[in-house]
Each structure stands twice: as C-alpha cells, then as structure tokens.
C-alpha cells in the first residue's frame, strides 16, 4: 500500500500553554512494498510520524493518504479497517501486554478484528519462532518475561495480524546483537518475500543503511531529506549536524582515505559491501 504525506503538520495540545509543534510541513511518499527507514535524533518526531500511519494521530493540517484512505476525517469503521491493514508495533511493549498468557495476548488483536481464531491458533508456534521464541512461551504469563522477550511477544502480537503494512518503532532497541540481526532479517524477509511494506524507526544508521531502500531523515519535526542509503553516504558530513552518526563501516572507509591516502570512490555503506570492495581491490592490486 502506498502512503503519501502532503503538507502534514502535527501539533500536540494545540491552543494550550503546553502546545508543541511536533511535525511541520511533511511531504513525502512511502512506495508500496518498499523498506523505508525513518531516522532522526531523539525528539525529532519519529514516533509522532508513525502514529499518523494508522490514524492514531491525525494531521492537524495537511493529509495522509494510506492506500485509499485519506486522513484526517475518517469514520470509526474505516479507521478500524485501516488499523487491520497497517500493523503498528510500539516502542514500549509494556504498554500493551495485559493478558494472562502469551497465547491470549497474541490472539487479542485477531479477536478484535474478527479474524478466524481457530485457524490462527495453529500458526502461533510459527509466529513465535519467527520472533525468536519457542512454543513453550505460549502458556507463560507475559509479565514474567524479560524486557527483550516482552518486546518479541508484542511484535508477534502484531505480526499475527498479517497486515499489508508493518510499522515498527525501534523494534530492536535493547535486544542482544544476535536477536537484533534475526529480527532485521525477518523484516527483510517479510518485505522481499511476502511483499509487505515495512516502515522502520531506528536510531542506528548502520541498520538503516543496511536494510532500507529509502531513508526519511527527520530533524526537529521537519523533513531533512528523503534519500537512498547510497546518496546519504555521499552527504555523510552533514549527518552529525542533525544528531546522527555515520555507520562504523563508513568511518572505517574515511579513516583509510585520510591516513593511508587510499583513493576510494565507492558508495559502499555496510560492513559486507565495504569488505567486498576491499577484497576486490587487494586482489586487483596483487594482479597489478
């Protein structure tokens, strides 16, 4: 599903002393079946932006068009339909866990949306496995889980809905490196193999560059730029000014250039591509 932002402003608590302009004049497009990362420093408005995607917040002015639904001004019923089609996983899982068992927790969304519970119940072990948990968790209480496990359960409780668009607010924050990679691979799989549109918020430029095909850079509630990872690499010197650090792999390339006076014009961004380019060079150099 394509998502189009047009001149979107969002103001928290308008006309009060606590009024806060969180989003200002946003216009951009998230193409259908793309993997879009939204990056920006703390407080730049990422979570506020995400909540516009399924109508939890609606623009103060401007419009957001998601598929054939246009916000603001949608009635309760199409809004619920929209939420079924756009699954959103929040930053803090403890805000949603409440059932007695993980199994009930996972079936909470499907129950609300009136899906076929009997059929979904059979899929529960698979969904748990996808997020890195095993079947034994089904009967456990969500409140006895560790922070990382809660996060995975919260994620699974949205994955089970099988929505067309998957919106993730820092899904890997606080996970161990292996678990983190596993989840990112899962998102890539859902994007590439299952054709889901994925929108991911992250602080980590490394992940954003490695997994996304489009980057939306937010700065202080405004769009700084919408770009591809490749182009952002070229403009990396501008990143630090808006509170983002270029990935380590890029720092490595820069260091090589400066200290070893290596001539390097590549656009490689991730550890894998940088190493590959390096290997190629060494091989080529040996041949020279």
């Amino acid at each position, binding site marked *: 599903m394509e998502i189009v932002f047009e001149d979107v402003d969002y103001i928290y608590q308008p006309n009060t002393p606590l009024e806060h302009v969180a989003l200002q004049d946003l216009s951009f497009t998230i193409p259908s079946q793309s993997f879009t990362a939204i990056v920006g420093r703390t407080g730049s408005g990422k979570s506020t932006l995400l909540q516009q995607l399924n109508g939890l917040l609606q623009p103060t002015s401007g419009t957001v068009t998601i598929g054939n639904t246009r916000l603001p001004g949608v009635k309760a019923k199409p809004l619920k339909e929209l939420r079924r089609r756009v699954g959103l996983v929040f930053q803090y899982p403890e805000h*949603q866990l409440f059932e007695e068992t993980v199994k009930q927790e996972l079936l909470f969304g499907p129950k609300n949306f009136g899906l076929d519970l009997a059929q979904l119940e059979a899929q529960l072990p698979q969904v748990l496995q996808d997020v890195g948990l095993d079947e034994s968790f089904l009967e456990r209480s969500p409140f006895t889980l560790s922070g990382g496990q809660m996060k995975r359960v919260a994620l699974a409780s949205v994955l089970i809905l099988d929505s067309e668009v998957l919106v993730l607010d820092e899904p890997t924050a606080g996970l161990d490196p292996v678990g983190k990679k596993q989840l990112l691979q899962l998102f890539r799989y859902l994007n590439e193999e299952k054709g889901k549109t994925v929108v991911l918020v992250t602080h980590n430029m490394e992940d954003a560059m490695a997994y996304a095909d489009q980057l939306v850079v937010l700065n202080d509630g405004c769009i700084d730029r919408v770009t591809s990872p490749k182009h952002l690499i070229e403009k990396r010197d501008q990143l630090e000014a808006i509170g983002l650090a270029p990935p380590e792999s890029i720092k490595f390339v820069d260091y090589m250039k400066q200290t070893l006076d290596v001539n390097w014009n590549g656009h490689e961004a991730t550890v894998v591509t940088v190493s590959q380019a390096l290997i190629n060079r060494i091989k080529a150099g040996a041949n020279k």
Partner: protein
Amino acid sequence: MKQSFILGQYIPRDSFIHRLDPRTKIISLILFVITMFVIDRLFIYSLLYGFVLGCVLLSTIPITYLIKGLKPVWWLVVITFIFHVLFQRDGEALFDVFGFIIYDQGFIQGGEIASRLLLMIVMATLLTLTTPPLAITDAMRWFLAPLTRLGLPINELAIMMAISLRLIPTMTEEMDKISKAQAARGLDYTRGRLRDRLKALLPLLIPLFISAFKRAEALAMAMEARGYQGADHRTSYRQIAFRTMDYIIVCLMTTATVSIYLMTG
C-alpha cells in the same frame, strides 16, 4: 489528541502568583475555603468569583486552558446543581416540571454548593499549576513540622505526597500511550454494549497498574541506590523563603476572611 485533565500539572511561568511562597498560596487557599463555608450571602459569592478570576488572570495561565482541562469537573458541578434544583423541598414553590415542584431554595442552595465545588477545584488547580511539586512538598513539610514531636513520619509523608502529585500527569500520559497501543490492535471501547465497553477497559487498566507498580519499584530502588534511607534529619537545600509580598498577602487574606465573617456574622 484531546487535552488531558490538568489537576497536578505544573506550568512554569514568571507571574506574580508563581513567585509567591508556596506557603502563602496554601494558607490563602485554606482561608479562601473557610470563607466559602461560613458565608451564605449571594453577593459575597460574586466577590469570590471575582477573586478567583483575578487570581487566574494574575497567573497568566490562559482561561481557556483551565476550562478545557477541568472538563470532568464541569459535569460534576452541573449535575450537583441540577440535583439540588430538582430535589430541594424548602422555600417557596416556583413552578412544576413533570411533577417535580421546583422551589426557590433549590436554586439558591444548588448555586451555593455548585459554586463551592467549582471555586475550590479551580483554586486547587491554580495552586498546582503555579507551584513546582517540590515546592509544595517543602511547604507541606514546613506546616507539618510541629507534628514530628508526636512521632509522625513527616518527611516520609511529604515525599509520598510529592511523588503522588508528580505521578498524576505521568499516569495520564501513560494512559494515552496504552490506549493507542491497544487501539493499534483493534481495541474499541467507545462503542458497543455497556458490558463490552467495561470489559474493554481491562486492556487499559492492567498495563496502567503494572507500569505504576513497576515505576514505583524502580523509583524506590533508584532512591536507595543514591543513598536514600528514610528522610529523618534531612535539611532541605531548597530554601523556601517568605518575602515582603508574602507577609502582605497573608495579612490581607486574614483580614478579608475575618471581616467577611464579622460582616455576615
């Protein structure tokens, strides 16, 4: 997003009311409430309304913000008034609505009681809006200090109060986040039968309580980790200080209260 309930919220400004010592504000509030309960003349209520309006204006807090933020209270006030008008059986009968005989005392007493409720809540809200929670704690500790001799744990009480005050806005924010997280999974508690709606409150209340307990636990541990072992013999490094203006206000308020009392005697 709708605006949340604002009692307990603090809005930093640099107004006359903000600058007063918290003790002055609390004493004034108490005197105000006493006045309200001893008087029974309508014209004095107009004075009180004027006084409250003056305080709100001096605080530079927009009136519309107060009106919107106290929405639940308005309902309470209106219902109180209607209740009195319908069920009061004193005074002269005025007219009759669907078998309810309406008496003039119904209007008068309903107006009085609803006014008391309204004015008291507006003033209390104004206190928290213009005073940092820590300053309120310090003031409470100062007022309660004589009771330490009776063995009451004053400092603990003061800290408990400060933490509770601080938690009201935090909990409303939390509630907002929780209801969004559940709405994203299709929860709808605004429609359907009453029973279904009540059942739909559970997914909101359980995470709220759990997070409140966790927050309390984390706070306790963080306090302990930073060397807190009960508040005995602590000296407050924030000094709240009475200034000339505070003496003047307290004297004025006392004089006003006493003279209103004598006048209406």
